[in-house]
C-alpha cells in the first residue's frame, strides 16, 4: 500500500497498478477534511488500497484534466482504469467501503 502525492506529470503512472483512490482536495475545503479522516482509517486497515492525495492548489491543471467538478472528489482506479467516482464530502466510511468492495469484488 502507498500514499502518494501525484501531479499531472506522474498521475497516470501513479495509479497504473493496483487499487488506487485519487482524492482531489483543497486545503480550505472543510468536507475534504472529513473525507481525509475516513480515508486515513480505510488505508490503515487495508494495505492493498493505495491513496493518491491530489491537492488542487498545488496543480490546478489536474482539475480539468481529470474532470474534477468540485472538492472533494474521489476517483477509484483498478490497474489504471477508472472504476467509479464519488463527489462531495458527505459520504460515510461505510458508503466509501461499499464502493471499494463493489469495484474489488463485484456486486
Amino acid at each position: 500500500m502507498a500514499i502518494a502525492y501525484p501531479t499531472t506529470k506522474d498521475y497516470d503512472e501513479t495509479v497504473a497498478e493496483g487499487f488506487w483512490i485519487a482524492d482531489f482536495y483543497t486545503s480550505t475545503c472543510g468536507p475534504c477534511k472529513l473525507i481525509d479522516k475516513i480515508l486515513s482509517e480505510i488505508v490503515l486497515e487495508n494495505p492493498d488500497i493505495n491513496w493518491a492525495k491530489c491537492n488542487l492548489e498545488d496543480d490546478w491543471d489536474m482539475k480539468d484534466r481529470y474532470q474534477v467538478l468540485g472538492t472533494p472528489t474521489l476517483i477509484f482506479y483498478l490497474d489504471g482504469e477508472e472504476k467509479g467516482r464519488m463527489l462531495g464530502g458527505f459520504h460515510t466510511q461505510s458508503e466509501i467501503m461499499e464502493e471499494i468492495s463493489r469495484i474489488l469484488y463485484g456486486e
Partner: protein
Amino acid sequence: MKTKLYSIPDWQAALRAIGWADAPTGDDVEKAVSRELTRGKASFAEQAPGAPIEKGCRATLRTESALPKFNKEKTVVTVGSGLYDPAIEAQLCGMTAGGRGEAAVKGEKVSFTVTKVEKKVLPPLTDELVRELRLEGIATLADYRLCMDSKLKEEYAAELCRRLLEELLPAARMDPPEEEDIRRVIDLEYEPLRARFSLDTLSPEEWKEAFENAKLRDFYTQIYPDIARLLGTTGRESYYESRRDAAAETIRACLVLGRILGDDADPTEDPQAERKLTQALTGRLLEMIYGG
C-alpha cells in the same frame, strides 16, 4: 455573574474514586506512534507454513457459488478489512493455507478454499518516516515519541477532567443559573455568528433554509461546531431557546471548575471561560497523574 455556588464536594476525593489506573502507558504511546508512522507503508510477506490467519493477513481464496461474486478462481481478501463478506472474513481467522470453509450469503451456499496466506509486515520505525509527516519542529523518532506521549496524556487528562465534572456537578450546591446570566452567555456566543452570517439580514425563511439541513449536522459538528449550533434553529429567539440548557450547563461548569482552581473566570464576560478553566484543570490533573 449573578448565579451563586455555595459548595462542591471534595474534588480530590472524587478524583481518587474515579482513579487513573487506565492512564496511557509507554506501550500505548508506542502503538500510537507505530500506527501513525506506518500508515500507508505496510507490505505483505509469505506466512510461515501452518501459521493461522489473523486479522490484517491477506488470504487468497478459491470460491464456488451460484453467486458470481463468490465463484472465482482467485479472490484476494484482507482479513478484517470489512470489504469482503463479513461472515467469510470472520471464518478465515484461525484457518491456515489449504483450509476449506462454507458460508451462506444471500441464501446461497458459498464454498471457499484458502490457497495462500500472507502476513502484514510493517516497516521499522525510523527518523525518515517521521520526516515524511512534515511536522513542524519534529524531525526525529524521539521527537515524535515525545509529541505523541504528550498528546495521549493530554487527551487522557481532558477526559478525566470531564468525568470529574460529571461527578461533581450533580452534588454541587448552587442556585439554578440566573436568566440574565444565561442570556448573557448566549449573547456572547451568538454575536460572532451574527456578524459572520449576517444573521440580522436573513428572513425567517432564509434562516430556516440555511440552517435546518440535517445532512450537514455531522459535518458541522466535526469541523465547525459553532455553526452546528445554528442547525435546526429558525431565528434569533429559536437559537436562544435551543442554547438555553447548554448555556446553563456552561455556567454551572465554570462555577465548579472555578471553585476547584480558585479562579473566578466568568462565562458571562468571557466566551472562552469554560475552555480556559478546563485547560487549567487538565494541566493540574496532568501534574497530579504524571508528576509535573
